[in-house]
């Protein structure tokens, strides 16, 4: 019973807020009324069961709450006419239907470039995901008042600067969608490899990111990068259970128990990737997803199709001149052409901007040296990696790795 209500809430929350934002043109008011409607629903449905059309029930209830609030507050005087007009109109709005465009507008508004990136992330989780302020604060390991202030400031700016919650013209949509994708990607990476001194994988944020990525894919199914990001997130998240051992220590891709990979997520991710390829040329997210699919297809690490992976990275490097992508390609090439080839490439990357402090470069270098039998140099590289690594779980892993190499066990 409770699960049913929770499931309904999950699906109905962004639709309800989106419809209310469209009607009221006021994010804060929409969010407050949606919350009140949900509280009323929880109370009533517990006893009477979930109605046939829960969305319509919620929207009607939230509209009534809005009218009550508006009548009480002068500052909403101009909203009353708006709301009464929608209530009277025979459009979809009054029948409880919401258009996919309303939800897209909501996402685009939360990820508006005029808002600070941290505020974009928090707003998206609050307004679209329906998380409470305290849940978001916990997920990002910041004090609740800090998160509350961040959300309040963002909502104040939306109102004061009149940031529109609308879907822009086709030609402007691409750059705005890129901002939404970036926010969803940040939520996932924050959950997947947190830089904060807690667990390495924070499943709650990963779940949110998966849900948001698939919602977006539903709203804009024909955008290759939207599908590409959904694919990348699902394919990466499929390995969640295998990434940590029973003691919570990190397990490398090559040592992971592949029977613990989530086949259902891999299938869903692959489906999104196929859709991305059909929709047009794939971008950075789609290409990374394509590399993830190659890993998923290999029953054992030794069976990985490295030629295919190197080819994908070649394309990524060509399009996005990023030293991080080049580092990944160097590692992939080391499995195809030998560790010596990989090491030459990795050592060239040290000179590149920002790479001196990038601990993954030293991790890659250490492993290549180990594979070449240059144990002492490998240990020195691990020392540099450990000194630069911000994540305690990952640091413990590197320390154990360093000890094993020093003892000649690896």
């Amino acid at each position, binding site marked *: 019973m409770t699960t049913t209500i929770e499931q309904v809430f999950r699906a109905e929350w962004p639709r309800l807020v989106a419809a209310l934002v469209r009607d009221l043109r006021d994010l804060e008011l929409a969010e407050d009324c949606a919350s009140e409607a949900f509280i009323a629903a929880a109370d009533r449905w517990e006893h009477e069961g979930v109605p046939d059309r829960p969305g319509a029930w919620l929207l009607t209830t939230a509209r009534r709450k809005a009218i009550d609030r508006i009548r009480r507050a002068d500052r909403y005087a101009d909203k009353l006419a708006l709301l009464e007009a929608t209530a009277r109109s025979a459009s979809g709005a009054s029948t409880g239907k919401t258009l996919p465009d309303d939800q897209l507008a909501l996402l685009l508004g939360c990820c*508006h470039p*005029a808002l600070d990136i941290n505020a974009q992330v928090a707003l998206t989780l609050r307004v679209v995901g329906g998380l409470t302020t305290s849940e978001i604060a916990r997920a990002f390991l910041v004090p609740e008042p800090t998160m509350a202030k961040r959300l309040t400031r963002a909502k104040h700016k939306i109102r*004061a*600067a*009149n*940031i*529109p919650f*609308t879907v*822009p013209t086709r030609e402007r949509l691409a750059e705005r969608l890129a901002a939404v994708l970036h926010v969803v990607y940040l939520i996932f990476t924050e959950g997947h490899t947190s830089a904060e001194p807690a667990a390495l994988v924070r499943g709650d944020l990963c779940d949110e990111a998966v849900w948001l990525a698939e919602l977006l894919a539903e709203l804009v199914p024909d955008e290759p990068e939207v599908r590409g990001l959904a694919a990348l997130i699902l394919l990466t998240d499929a390995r969640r259970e295998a990434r940590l051992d029973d003691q919570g220590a990190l397990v490398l891709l090559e040592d992971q128990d592949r029977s613990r990979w989530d086949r259902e997520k891999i299938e869903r991710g692959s489906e999104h990737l196929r859709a991305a390829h059909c929709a047009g040329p794939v971008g950075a997210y789609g290409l990374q997803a394509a590399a993830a699919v190659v890993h998923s297809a290999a029953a054992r690490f030794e069976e990985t199709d490295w030629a295919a992976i190197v080819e994908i990275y070649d394309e990524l490097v060509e399009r996005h001149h990023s030293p991080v992508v080049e580092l990944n390609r160097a590692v992939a090439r080391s499995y195809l052409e030998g560790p010596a080839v990989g090491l030459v490439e990795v050592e060239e990357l040290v000179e590149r901007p920002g790479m001196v402090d990038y601990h993954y470069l030293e991790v890659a270098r250490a492993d290549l040296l180990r594979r070449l039998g240059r144990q002492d140099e490998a240990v020195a590289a691990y020392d540099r990696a450990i000194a630069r690594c911000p994540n305690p779980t990952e640091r413990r892993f590197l320390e154990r790795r360093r000890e094993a190499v020093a003892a000649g066990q690896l």
Partner: protein
Amino acid sequence: MRYMLLLYSAEDAGPQPGTDEFAAEMEEWFTYTNEITEAGHMLGGEPLQPTGTATTVRVRDGETLTTDGPFAETKEVLGGFYMIDVPDLDAAREWAAKIPSAPYGSVEIRPIMELPTGP
């Protein structure tokens, strides 16, 4: 909704007076101002003299202090402004991006604080 577009740039950035580029840029300013006026969004706007002409006044403990120069010594300085009336921030961003100094300076968009009108 009214917005103030505040135009900042380094004084030595962009075309300098007396050059052909400067004359060409003047044309761009006229074109832009005509365009935004004809679109019905223009409420006002002026270029300002360089900060070498600026005087700053502060009143402290009832005493008026006058100093030479702008209120803060920064590389990018306020060089002019437009006040516009457009539906929302995205429209304001579009007009801000078309300003001739945007490629070498910055445009700060500030919503006007609407005060309640008296009785």
